[in-house]
């Protein structure tokens, strides 16, 4: 604004806003038109091509970005699906493990019951055998003691008279076997 006022002051002679020389205005305008025409003729197409390429590059970048985004989303879905599958697999594995553990627990319980029964039966057999052996030992010992006592009693009663009676009875018995 100050410049305009200064210029106005400097050209205050004709109080006109154009340069004093009208030819300068004409030639300047003409040069401008020539330059503009040259630009229009020679720079229009490259510029248009530049901007079209620019638009196409941007569009391709956007499409690539979109494709990347779509791919990323697909990958994300895949990962999510895989995660979901892995969760299901983990759940299935856990269920299988639980079932296997239950089956093993049941089998161990059955086996333990069977072992307990076998041990019990064996113990009963051993007990019966031991009882039988003890009874046999006792019986044998009683028999030994009883017959030892009987032998002593018999031996004590076998005086000479009884010896002679036994011998005579034997001879009579042999004679009666004819």
């Amino acid at each position, binding site marked *: 604004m100050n410049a305009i006022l200064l210029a106005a002051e400097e050209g205050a002679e004709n109080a006109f806003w154009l340069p004093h020389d009208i030819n300068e205005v004409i030639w300047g305008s003409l040069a401008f038109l020539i330059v503009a025409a040259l630009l229009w003729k020679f720079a229009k197409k490259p510029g248009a091509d530049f901007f079209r390429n620019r638009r196409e590059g941007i569009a391709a970048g956007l499409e690539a970005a979109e494709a990347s985004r779509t791919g990323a989303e697909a990958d994300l879905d895949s990962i999510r699906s895989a995660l979901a599958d892995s969760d299901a697999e983990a759940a299935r594995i856990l269920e299988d493990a639980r079932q296997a553990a239950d089956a093993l627990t049941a089998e161990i319980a059955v086996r333990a019951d069977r072992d307990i029964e076998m041990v019990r039966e064996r113990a009963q057999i051993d007990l019966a055998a031991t009882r039988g052996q003890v009874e046999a030992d006792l019986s044998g010992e009683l028999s030994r003691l009883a*017959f030892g006592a009987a032998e002593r009693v018999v031996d004590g009663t*076998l005086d000479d008279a009884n010896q002679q009676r036994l*011998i005579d*009875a*034997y*001879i009579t018995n042999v*004679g009666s076997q004819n």
Partner: protein
Amino acid sequence: MTDIRITAYAEALLAIAAAEGEVDRVQDELFQLGQAVQADEQLRTTISDSRLPASRRAQVIEDVLGEGAAPATVAIASMAVSLGRGADLPEISTEMARVSAASVGAVVAEARSAVPLTEDQVSRLAQALTAKLGREVTVRNTVDPTVMGGVVTQIGDEVIDGSIRTRLNQLREAF
């Protein structure tokens, strides 16, 4: 000693006894001596000990037989011991009885009893066995305390057991 030697000694000693006319007495006394040797291990060892002089072993035999024994018995036993057959006296005396009995068609029965049988009991047992077997039987009595009571008679492989010991054993097994 083989059976052949035992039989040979038995026949020879029996012939000597017959020559002396004391077959039965010699047989009885040798049988008793044989039983004594069989029962007494120390006596058997002494009369079999070749390191002892034959005269010493013969003296032991004379001491065992005693003064009541027939001279033929003492001489025969002393001769057998001097020849180193002291340990075989039980078998020789048994074989003498068998050979003697066989010579008259009889068999020998060994009767074991806890107390000695009387002559009457030996005779009656011989008669009973003769009647039972249908052939002449000569009874030789051996005192065996393990019999306890009664008699066990063996004739060859046949045993007639009437001992108290066997009855007690049978009762023990049945119990």
